[in-house]
């Protein structure tokens, strides 16, 4: 399997080699095809709400049927046993998880910490940089016109160029410049820089949507009290805007968590890279399953948390509409 095949697997939310049974099945029942069935049957924001016992029975039954069908297809496939050996071998999964440097492979379980650290660093930087870009794009002053154009080009560029290319460009390009401080950082640092550049473009648009979602009358009310533009923004507009965009922001961060895997192409030993090293050393790809499980463990709590926030906002809005 080439680098790109594997990455596509991640990009499109695990199909093919990272398919159903084993521990993944449990994860898929909330994130995979079954979720669609719930979404239309339940209609509520919580998976099993709104419909009472009959709805619960129907949704349980449909889950069982869907899962059983998927497992059956998997088990009945001509190459099933081989795939199970290659991707779901318990011994190899454990070995790749704990790692063994003497045999030439790293612990996937330890490598995920690099993903987490890169994620946390990038998250903070993205929140700051994206806000600056959004505020520049929202500005109206003629003096800032050149900055507005730059911000627009920035967003167009980094939303248009695949993140992988940005990672390559920063990770291999900046060191090649042989600048004194900038060119001597670790691959993880370049990775964080690439993630920040790319994601800030997306997140700035989320911020912009949030700023636009605050009604113009709030601006008028703040300004009419004699507050300056900056003070009104800081105390009246931004707090409301950010409240409105927490769910889409978290959605982008779920995506960011797993895109930290792309930094592996530079040679940084993050979970995905460690798993591939295991695979090409031992010729068993169960390590990739381990990496997938670890990423799911990271992203699913954030996904559920996001659901809960959306649910809360929805209830608040309904409550507001009644008064």
């Amino acid at each position, binding site marked *: 399997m080439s680098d790109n095949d594997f990455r596509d697997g991640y990009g499109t939310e695990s199909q093919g080699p990272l398919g159903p049974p084993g521990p993944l099945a449990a994860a898929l029942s909330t994130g995979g095809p079954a979720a669609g069935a719930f979404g239309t049957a339940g209609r509520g924001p919580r998976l099993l709400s709104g419909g009472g016992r009959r709805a619960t029975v129907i949704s349980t039954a449909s889950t069982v049927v869907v899962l059983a069908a998927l497992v059956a297809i998997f088990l009945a496939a001509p190459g099933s046993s081989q795939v199970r050996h290659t991707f779901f071998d318990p011994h190899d999964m454990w070995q790749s998880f704990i790692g063994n440097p003497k045999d030439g492979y790293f612990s996937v379980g330890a490598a995920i910490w690099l993903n987490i650290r890169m994620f946390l660093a990038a998250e903070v930087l993205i929140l700051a940089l994206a806000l600056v870009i959004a505020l520049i794009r929202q500005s109206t002053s003629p003096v800032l016109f050149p900055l507005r154009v730059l911000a627009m080009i920035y967003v167009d560029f980094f939303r248009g160029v695949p993140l992988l290319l940005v990672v390559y460009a920063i990770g291999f390009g900046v060191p090649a410049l042989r600048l004194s401080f900038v060119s001597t950082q670790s691959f993880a640092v370049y990775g964080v820089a690439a993630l920040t550049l790319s994601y800030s473009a997306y997140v700035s648009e989320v911020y912009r949507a949030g700023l636009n979602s605050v009604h113009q009358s709030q601006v008028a009310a703040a300004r009419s009290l004699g*507050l300056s533009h900056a003070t009104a923004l800081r105390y009246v507009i931004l707090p409301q805007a950010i409240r409105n965009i927490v769910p889409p922001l978290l959605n982008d961060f779920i995506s960011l968590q797993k895109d930290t895997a792309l930094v592996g192409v530079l040679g940084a030993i993050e979970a995905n890279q460690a798993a591939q090293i295991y695979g090409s050393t031992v010729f068993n790809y169960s390590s990739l399953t381990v990496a997938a499980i670890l990423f799911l463990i990271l992203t699913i709590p954030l996904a559920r948390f996001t659901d809960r926030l959306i649910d809360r906002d929805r209830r608040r809005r309904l409550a507001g509409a009644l008064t």
Partner: protein
Amino acid sequence: MTAAAGLAGTGPADQGSADTAIEVEDLYKSFGPNQVLSGVCLSVAPHEVVCLIGASGSGKSTLLRCINLLEPISAGRIRLLGQDVTVPGVNANAVRRHVGIVFQSFNLFPHMTVLRNVTLAPVKALGMPRAQAENAAAELLARFGLADKQSEYPDRLSGGQQQRVAIVRALAMQPQVMLLDEVTSALDPELVAEVLDVIRELAGAGMTMLIATHEMGFARDIANRVCFLEEGRIIEQAPPAELFTEPSDERTRRFLRRIVDAGRM
């Protein structure tokens, strides 16, 4: 407080007299091709209460928003407490600190408690110490029957309470002039009285007010002078007793007849 001190720090030097609180001369305002104000002339004396009446779209709200510099004007001149606020270089923020405006839709800040809503501007725009601002706010809230609502969020209040908080929020800046933009139009009928009572109290305390309203009974009751607007012009202005009983202009008569026919007066 004198006019010069009242608008201190707002920009170019004082040119006019301070005999009028608000003086609007030949004001034009258009939104694109849509001409909303076509030569409004109006003056409001200190402590005077002037009501603006007229159909929706006649320019009442736009006039108030222009006076508060929320809308750039197309042509004309506005003087507040004797100072021309339409010349370039005027500090709009400083002007607005002297001119309170209350909107039809309350526009309280939903993410702040009532107390924070009221103290935000004194603290952030005037640099008042927080404790002092909170004391002043508590006093104002108590005066308007909102003492127990200090720590509530706006969505927990009735419309009438929200509008009273909005009035208190504007008063907390100690404005010399209050502009009220149809402040009871969004309220349920049973909540209108409590807001009108607040305005009556303000009038009694000598506040200079320019009030756009659809409440004819209230206008007749409280106003020193009533102005009828149509198509962006003041058609007729007179003391309420005169304007409501023997309007001189045919257009005013027509408007009032419609109001009476609709059972609103």
